[in-house]
């Protein structure tokens, strides 16, 4: 299985995402923002960082990158796409996922080992977890507050599209403690916490994040 990881100017966690893909047993493929070609990958990760500096709204410029055109089309066709942190912001800006991410309610950048509850295992990226499983992965952002209108939030909950929720306290003011969501089909997932930073005992608070990547591997190649 080949997993593309997009590098925008200002992407920071792209190498980490490629490492996580490799540790999960898949082949990482570096994709370039200016290249409107997915090079036949089986899944795509939009990594964390500050694409184009995020001086405008986070992800607002990245959504217009040439690579996003085939990506959006493929995502509508069922290609597994995982957006982490800035990648989640890009997915919202691209309207692949509803809602938006705004500045943390405490107005500070916040880097912590965050407890999460996996609420939906019906997505390509979380099928390897147990429903209700508590995991710990790093959270690090300045603009991680998830917001959407009431109707959208009700819809997400009714359809089981809240993928991960913050546990042990809301770190940033996200509505209904939402940390990550999926599209209707469950192939596109976006979340603010960083599963790619929890794939090795040596460098992460746990290895809980690895299951995101092994889940996708299983979904695509069936192993």
């Amino acid at each position, binding site marked *: 299985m080949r997993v593309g990881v997009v590098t925008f100017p200002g992407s*920071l966690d792209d190498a980490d995402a490629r490492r996580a893909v490799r540790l999960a047993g898949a082949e990482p493929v570096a994709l370039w923002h200016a290249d409107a070609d997915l090079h036949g990958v089986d899944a795509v990760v939009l990594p964390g960082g*500050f694409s184009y*500096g995020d001086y405008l709204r986070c992800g607002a410029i990245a959504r217009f990158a040439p690579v996003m055109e085939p990506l959006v089309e493929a995502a509508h066709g069922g290609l597994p796409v995982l957006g982490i942190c800035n990648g989640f912001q890009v997915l919202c800006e691209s309207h692949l996922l509803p809602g938006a991410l705004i500045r943390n309610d405490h107005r500070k950048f916040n880097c912590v080992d965050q407890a999460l509850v996996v609420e939906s295992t019906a997505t390509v990226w979380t099928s390897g977890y147990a429903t209700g499983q508590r995991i710990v992965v790093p959270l690090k952002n300045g603009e991680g507050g998830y917001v959407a209108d009431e109707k959208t939030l009700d819809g997400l909950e009714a359809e089981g599209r809240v993928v991960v929720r913050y546990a042990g306290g809301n770190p940033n003011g996200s509505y209904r403690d939402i940390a990550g969501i999926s599209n209707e089909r469950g192939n596109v997932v976006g979340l603010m916490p960083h599963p790619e930073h929890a794939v090795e005992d*040596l460098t992460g608070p746990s290895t809980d994040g690895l299951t995101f990547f092994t889940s996708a591997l299983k979904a695509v190649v069936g192993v």
Partner: protein
Amino acid sequence: MSETVKHAETTPEVQQPWRELGLKEDEYARIREILGRRPTSAELAMYSVMWSEHCSYKSSKLHLAQFGQKAPKTDALLVGIGENAGVVDIGQGWAVTFKVESHNHPSYVEPYQGAATGVGGIVRDIMSMGARPVAVMDPLRFGPADAEDTRRVLPGVVAGIGGYGNCLGLPNIGGEVVFDPSYAGNPLVNALCVGVVRHEDIKLAFASGRGNLIVLFGAATGGDGIGGVSVLASETFDDAHPTKRPAVQVGDPFMEKVLIECCLEVFAADLVVGIQDLGGAGLSCATSELASAGDGGMTVWLDRVPLRDSSLAPEEILMSESQERMCAVVEPAKLDAFLDICAKWDVLATVIGEVDDSGRLTVQWHGDTIVDVPPRSVAHDGPVYERPFARPSWQDALQADDPSSLPRPTSGDELRATLLQMVAAPNLASKSWVTDQYDRYVLGNTVLAQPEDAGVIRVDDETHLGVALATDGNGRFAKLDPYAGAQLALSEAYRNVAVSGARPLAVTDCLNFGSPEDPDVMWQFAEATRGLADACLELGVPVTGGNVSFYNQTGDAAINPTPVVGVLGVVADVRRRVPIGFGAADEVVLLLGEARDELGGSEWAHHVHGHLGGLPPRVDLAAEKALGALMAAAADDGLVTAAHDVSDGGLAQTLVEMVLRRGVGASVTVDDVAGDAFVALFAESVARAVVAVPADRVADLEASASSYGVPVTRLGNTGGETLVVQGVLTVAVDELRAAHEGTFPALFG
């Protein structure tokens, strides 16, 4: 238009604003002598900024020479002092370059941008050695924690470091946050960066090869950071010219991030002959340093420099400290490939000059020659001062005022109250309010980060090779005895690296002092440099580079002399790193090293009594070396599951931090540690660490300690949800945590 060399030659009588630019009369005379005429306004600008204290080290040079003269013999140093940063061999073909610098004054004026550009500047220093930056650390000093101005400066500095470093994608793995009234009005914002490079890829700053091109790349040049030089512009130009330029630079971390990636790609393709970052003194510094380190001369066409502000005068362009700029020397045949990579990353790149064999640095402005100087005279032949220094008249009285008369807690209740008061003291309290604003995970190679003793970064995924870094400095100790204080800073940083399982290799230092024109301060500086050089020799760790920051004072009141020392160590296998936290119950807790009744300059005297006097703890470098060797062996053999040095706040603080890290309690006795429980818990004697050892390995550790000559005291065992000092006090982990973690949020929101 700007003043030409021709004009200067024919008008020797013109009065020039050398005094306003900070030059002394004899310095101005010397410039005239070097040139055989009066300087042009552009030349005057270049000399004034390059001969400033900041760029020329004119007051410190004589003393800094000791770091070379007394350097220990080592094979590890690949590039020494004098380049942008020192380079150290860590084996397996890998090298590491690291350096700490100050950005103190700008961070007081404008905390966010001052601190942010401090990070940016040190990162570019590391890049200019051909290395990939892999981590940063920030030793910080502020005035009293509850002072109103600290509430302005600290949040701004922390947000600036985070805002820049996080956006750059470099993990922040350590540093310090220290409060003392002496830093009110003079906060210290030091920034350290470490980078890794393969031996064969090390780059140096020199311009050689006639016909090679000088390429300026990165951000366009604006009016920021010009400060004092605007005096020239206002003299030279009419009133329509914008006169007041901001003295503090403004950073663009996104530009720096793409500049890093662009540089690394350019390095990998072997497209540069030499490279130099643009920091203090901007193009003046970069061009004169590149030219004087090369083998010929250089011509610069200054009007080709891309500008953000088209009204900038040539003097200002030469001076501008606009951030995120680099200068490369490129062979003409490789220029297109170089420019292609810059275009890929949307980085502006412009050929602004050419290497020649004239032996001169000439700067052209629309066809006129406005600078024509021997480059070495600008970059390296600045004035050297033998500043007078003398032991301050108050030093003896300060040392005589020892803390022995301060009331000490004796009963269990008093000691318990003191312990809770101490762990909540701003200097000892949890710094997570600060460090949680920094990304410590990015790049995925952070093995240890604050609040661990040292930051540890994996360098090689395959072989598990890594490096450890710690910075320390105690201004109170240095005030009491600057010779010993500098050695104690080294001693502690060395220990922090060693207890993490690393072998200390090399040193960088940031020497923060008051005005060198004050003989008291100059004595402190002379003593501190002498102490540090002597200690580096004894511990076998050379100084590879660093920075001096003078004039940290308000009126006559100088800061406590604050030598901040960074120690780099190598970890052969990062999987064997040793964390500070107790990890499991029923392990044996041991104290390594000896305690004495040493409380002069201690955190207890400072926090509880507001007292500073007496002598700092006795320096014992031999004991430090023995402890380091023992800890390296213990890490290799997997004998210890946790280790934490004993320093600020004494054994009590060490135990509290080991308990709180992972919420595993401990029960200990301090009866065999020192004279009484108070001294045992709060003295700050050096060369000590607490370790946790599985019960079946205690004999092995004791045997090893004995072979290295390190005294061992059994303290007790891990486990439970309390910290118990038998016969003295018991505190629940939750109560400790509330005290330790409540301070910063209460102070800063």
